[in-house]
């Protein structure tokens, strides 16, 4: 269980994390989503005790990371920035970490096999590709068999096969009842992996909800209508409470009414429809729309563009 409470971090004039509160529970993959620069990595570094917050707390099973006695047995972390001495072999890197926690050499061999680095275990890390580096980072995270995993952009630099592997690994670990907290700036990737989403922008919480709910709320329910009787249809739809935006000539974009209802209205009045198409914004578009707001403006409420997901400040109540 990860709990973040009113966490703030400033770097000079820049507020990277701004009064952020959320909780991450066990048994599911929780995605931590936000555009680049939203404060995801900083939040994770604060959680892991690498940075000191200006205010607020971040705890793991009720304790600040600094108070964990054998931290790698409790939390496994993969950081976005490399955290490996390039002159050391993969095996020795893992051995160094294992020895700090009193873990046996056997465990080092196990995680090397698990992430598929057996063939290069004795090679210097400096020569590793990005993908091999990520695998080594995952091996380090899994070393202490921790119940909590904090992974910052784990699929970065992986080939498609590696991406599927990481995705499955995260689901598998969550299925064992572990807490899996994984950041990404790719909405589609998270839609495939995460059960729950925490979305931030500019260091503030934008959404904290189940992924399904996020997707449902993100899909713009507008309908494209084409009709030679556009003017008459506009009146009907407006009367029913729909919002019509004329595209050009015979085309209308209708919000607030589902497609079947528009079809029924037209049939009742005997109007001809040439096209009646529900429009679904892609997740990626919805996410960009949602976060663009928080990138450009300080207050989300001032922007009508946020037709997708309204802010839902939650405080660790799930």
């Amino acid at each position, binding site marked *: 269980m990860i709990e973040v409470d009113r966490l703030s971090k400033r770097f000079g004039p820049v507020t990277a994390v701004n009064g952020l509160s959320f909780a991450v529970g066990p048994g599911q993959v929780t995605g931590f989503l936000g555009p680049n620069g939203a404060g995801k990595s900083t939040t994770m570094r604060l959680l892991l005790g*690498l940075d*000191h917050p200006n205010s607020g707390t971040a705890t793991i099973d009720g304790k600040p990371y600094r108070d964990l006695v*054998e931290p790698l047995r409790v939390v496994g972390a993969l950081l976005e920035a490399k955290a490996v001495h390039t002159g050391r072999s993969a095996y020795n890197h893992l051995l160094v970490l294992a020895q*700090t*926690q*009193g873990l046996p050499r056997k465990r080092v061999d196990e995680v090397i096999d698990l992430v598929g680095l057996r063939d290069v275990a004795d090679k210097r890390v400096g020569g590793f590709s990005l993908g091999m580096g990520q695998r080594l980072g995952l091996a380090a995270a899994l070393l202490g068999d921790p119940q909590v995993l904090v992974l910052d952009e784990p699929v970065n630099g992986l080939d498609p096969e590696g991406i599927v592997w990481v995705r499955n690994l995260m689901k598998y670990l969550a299925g064992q009842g572990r807490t899996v907290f994984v950041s990404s700036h790719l909405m589609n990737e998270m839609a495939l992996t995460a059960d729950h989403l925490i979305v931030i922008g500019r260091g503030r919480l934008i959404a904290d909800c189940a992924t399904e709910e996020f997707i449902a709320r993100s899909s713009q329910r507008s309908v494209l209508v084409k009709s030679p009787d556009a003017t008459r249809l506009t009146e009907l739809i407006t009367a029913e409470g729909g919002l019509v935006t004329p595209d050009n000539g015979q085309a209308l974009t209708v919000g607030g009414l589902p497609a079947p209802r528009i079809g029924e209205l037209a049939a009742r009045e005997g109007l001809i429809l040439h096209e009646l198409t529900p429009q679904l914004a892609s997740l990626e578009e919805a996410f960009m729309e949602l976060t663009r707001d928080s990138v450009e403006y300080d207050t989300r409420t001032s922007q009508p563009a946020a037709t997708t997901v309204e802010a839902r400040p939650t405080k660790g109540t799930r």
Partner: protein
Amino acid sequence: MTTVASTPPVALAPASAPVRFARLLLSEWTKLRSVRSTIASLGLLVALTLGFTTLLTSLTVSQWSRADPNQQRQLMADPVSTILGAGFQLSQLTVCVLGVLVITSEYTTGMIRASLLAVPRRVPMLAAKSVVFALLVFVVGELVAFPSFFIGAAILHGKAPVSLGDPGVLRAVIGGGLYLAVLGLFALAIGGLLRHTAAAITGVIGFVLVLAPLAQLLPGSFGKHVHAYLPSEAGHLIGQAHQRPHDLLTPWQGFGVFCLWTAVLLGAAAYLLQRRDA
């Protein structure tokens, strides 16, 4: 994938503090032995020390007749300091560089983040690193100080005979390794404070090689005192058989001053390590 947890988590109570520190010592030892810079630096230390001891003492013997009587007297009064000085004057720089690298390489590669995730209290990591590094340099330092002394003594034998049994000589030779060990810690502390390899190496070499001649330019007793209390100037007194007439400090006092400098800098490095974002 079933191997994720094939070693079941050891759900026993966490180990006691001494056991955990012993683990950190082992881990820091693995760090040291598993990078090339350690072997390269210490190899160079051995080669340069023995090489320069041989070269400079041989030159001293061959040029003996041209040396002025003052120099001859000084050398005969304390041959061991000439022998050790000849060997270590240049080779000590390898210990400076390695001491800096031991910590700055963690920052430049990002390894420091992995280290601090494993030891979130941070200071025990620095303590373990310091202990292991100082012990390694001490052992290698002694392994090179004794051969260096025997080579030098053999070469100087005809002009300035000296043996381990002479007063202060054994202490001076052992002092060679002690000096290098503390010098390594001194460099490590500056590396920890500055976190950048180039800046830290420049800083350490400035302290060791540049400040001393500068301080000698200061006038009168003030300059003499500043010079005497500079870290490496005070520190290398331990490599002399006895206090010379113009020395302000005895060998042990000088070494104490050097240790104090190092302790203060290490303390500052530990304080900043805890305070700063990694």
